[in-house]
């Protein structure tokens, strides 16, 4: 099999998708988290400020989801079909939530009426929570494994998705995004809103630490296949170690009010957790909970080598471009958020 730098092409594409999902989590994670916290802010001005804190960037952040989806379609079309048709109803709800979230942000500021704004505030907050929760639920089920038969067909039903482990992962995702969002907002605000957010950040970090501990224990006890790789490669234990150290660092930096550092660490922990997930999964993408032989590996699902090579080239050209204008936009809107006549 053809390799680049010792790794075969499906593995490269697996890494690309992992990178895109991580990018999506790190970027859209904070604006989804900010949305989930939206109703904690009571005053109209506070709500406008937190909305405008994500205003210029949320749309660009969401693009990472579109690209990750496209990358999965392109690289592993078999998985794309199986995954999305299996999660049919959850994904439909996810799509509708994405629509509601986008229009809530866009429509809210268009009219001054209190009921109008309140309606969109609720819609924005609820849809942000829904999106995060559903993402976590899908992730939890992928970690846990799905009842998939030989023909790669899903044999469960809607209730299969709502197993306790997947629900726990959904809550963990929510808590992580909320923490991530709260840290982002505290960096972007000042005065009384800032003071309020410092309290909120503390509470979010407690919520996340609780979820983190529960998830770690549940994974060790109930999902043994996720820890398989560590037995063969003990050096990988560095990763959970980094995750725990990072978590402690988030807490320490929040306590000493170094929010930018805390934000970097919450990006790191998000990456760490997703890398752990990827290691547990590799070389499979969909793990069959009924029979390991029915799992779908990246090799069974991959597009042709030619197609993968073309797309790796596209990714190699495109990624620096995307990163450069992401940096440009974040740099343009750096500093504390201020309201003006073009604001939401």
């Amino acid at each position, binding site marked *: 099999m053809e390799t680049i730098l010792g790794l075969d092409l499906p593995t490269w594409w697996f890494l690309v998708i992992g990178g895109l999902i991580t990018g999506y989590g790190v970027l859209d994670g904070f604006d989804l988290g900010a949305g989930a916290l939206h109703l904690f802010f009571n005053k109209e001005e506070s709500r406008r400020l937190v909305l405008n804190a994500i205003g210029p960037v949320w749309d660009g952040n969401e693009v990472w989801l579109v690209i990750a989806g496209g990358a999965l379609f392109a690289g592993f079309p078999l998985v794309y079909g199986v995954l999305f048709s299996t999660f*049919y109803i959850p994904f439909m709800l996810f799509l509708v939530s994405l629509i509601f979230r986008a229009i809530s942000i866009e429509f809210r500021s268009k009219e001054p009426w209190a009921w109008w704004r309140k309606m969109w505030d609720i819609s924005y907050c609820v849809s942000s929570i829904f999106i995060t929760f559903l993402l976590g639920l899908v992730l939890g089920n992928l970690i846990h494994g799905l009842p998939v038969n030989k023909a790669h067909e899903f044999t469960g039903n809607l209730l299969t998705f709502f197993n306790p482990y997947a629900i726990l992962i959904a809550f963990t995702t929510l808590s992580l995004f909320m923490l991530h969002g709260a840290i982002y907002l505290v960096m972007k605000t000042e005065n009384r809103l800032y003071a309020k957010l410092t309290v909120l950040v503390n509470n979010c970090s407690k919520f996340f630490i609780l979820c983190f501990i529960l998830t770690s224990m549940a994974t060790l006890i109930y999902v043994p296949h996720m820890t398989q790789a560590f037995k063969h490669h003990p050096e990988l234990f560095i990763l959970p170690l980094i995750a725990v150290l990072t978590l402690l660092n988030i807490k320490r930096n929040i306590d000493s009010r170094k929010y930018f550092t805390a934000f970097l660490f919450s990006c790191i922990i998000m990456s760490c957790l997703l890398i752990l997930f990827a290691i547990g999964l590799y070389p499979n993408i969909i793990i069959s909970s009924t029979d390991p032989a029915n799992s779908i590996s990246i090799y069974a699902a991959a597009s042709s080598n030619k197609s993968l090579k073309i797309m790796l080239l596209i990714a190699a050209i495109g990624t620096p*471009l995307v990163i450069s204008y992401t940096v440009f936009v974040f740099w343009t809107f750096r500093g504390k958020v201020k309201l003006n006549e073009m604001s939401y």
Partner: protein
Amino acid sequence: MPSVEILSRIQFAFTVAFHYIYPPLSIGLGLCLVIMEGIYLKTGLPVYRDITRFWIKIFALIFGIGVATGIVMEFEFGTNWATYSHYVGDIFGSALAAEGIFAFALESGFLGVLLFGWNRVSKGVHFFSTIMVALGSIFSALWIVIANSWQQTPAGFRIEGHDLGARAVVTDFWEMVFNPSSVDRFSHVIIGSFLAGSFLVMSVGAWYILKGRYIKHAQAMFKVGLSVAVVAALMQLFTGHRSAEYVSKYQPAKLAAMEGHYDSLAVADMYLIGWVDNKNEKTTGIKIPGGLSFLTHGSFSAPVQGLHATPPADRPGAVNFVFQTYHFMVAIGITLIGLTLLAVFLLWKKQLFNHRWLMWIFVLAVLLPQVANQLGWYAAEVGRQPWVVYGLLRTSDALSKKVTADQVLFSLILFTFVYVLLFALFLFLLNRKISHGPDVTEDEATDSEHFSKRNIANIPS
């Protein structure tokens, strides 16, 4: 209950048709914005700054709905058309990935600067962002049309596997990208989009002129819109002809359906209006005898391949539907040429804005390119049936195997509800934005010599 196939087709058709209201407007408005802001930078005239900022706000509204409804399409391939996804992933996937990384990231990234950056960045950087957003939306269309064109005229691939496990694998990327219909269809789609956006700009301008509000601004935006529209309308005649040529060469059954032509040995007529009785295989109406023969073969007496040449199972069933949508699209295209040429002539005579009846027509004409864009796609996609990938994969084979009719019905009802609500909100907010009008900046309000009294009276407080 209807079958999964019918429900999935209805759902895809509905969601994509609704989505397609917005991207053409974004693409067309993007170009108009580049022109408006460019004129402002070149001349420094405040009126162009005002209309640029006014249209940026409407652009944001349209773009937002376009993005939100567009993501649906991407994921529907996986949810409802899993077999199709597996079949085309190797090919379609790279186009979609390229769209995301080259186009969508570009437009969404710079959109933030376009919307919120007016006071944050220099004029030049803002103008650059406007251009990037406009280019991004065009690139988006490029990759999507390439992917769709590959479905119409597959090229640069080979088939691996067999039956429902088969898939198309790319053998030549550039041959795939520049498949026989890509260029013609892309130019046809893009110019249709320029028409959609420019007619919206003219419609709003004409409305202000009729209401006697923001006269100066209204005339400025109308002229920008008209300059785009007249060029686009004329070019569309050319790209439309080119598209028909590729159809006659690569999808003869579609062309035959467009003109209701059955008998392969007969001379093919071209209808101005007509009706196809598919059951008795008879087409009646007002026609140019031998017109289609002339267009495809350059001779009024040459026979053209008819629907009979294709077995009934392999050709579109809704012949009259394809016929009607195609003919209405062409009729609208011709109307747009007449309308824009008339407007340019009157502008040259300096009488354009005095004709209230014409302004009324332009207020309503915003619907024409929209309808034509929709109809064109209906003809193209229904005319492609029963194939989802022409000649290779049938629509009925492309479904997700495990999805049930209940599930699709649920999501279809959900989308219907959400989209009706979305459309109502869109019209409401668009109407409010238009009645609010452009914010006329202060340095111009003091510049009263160039400012009509009527206009001042209408500045919203």
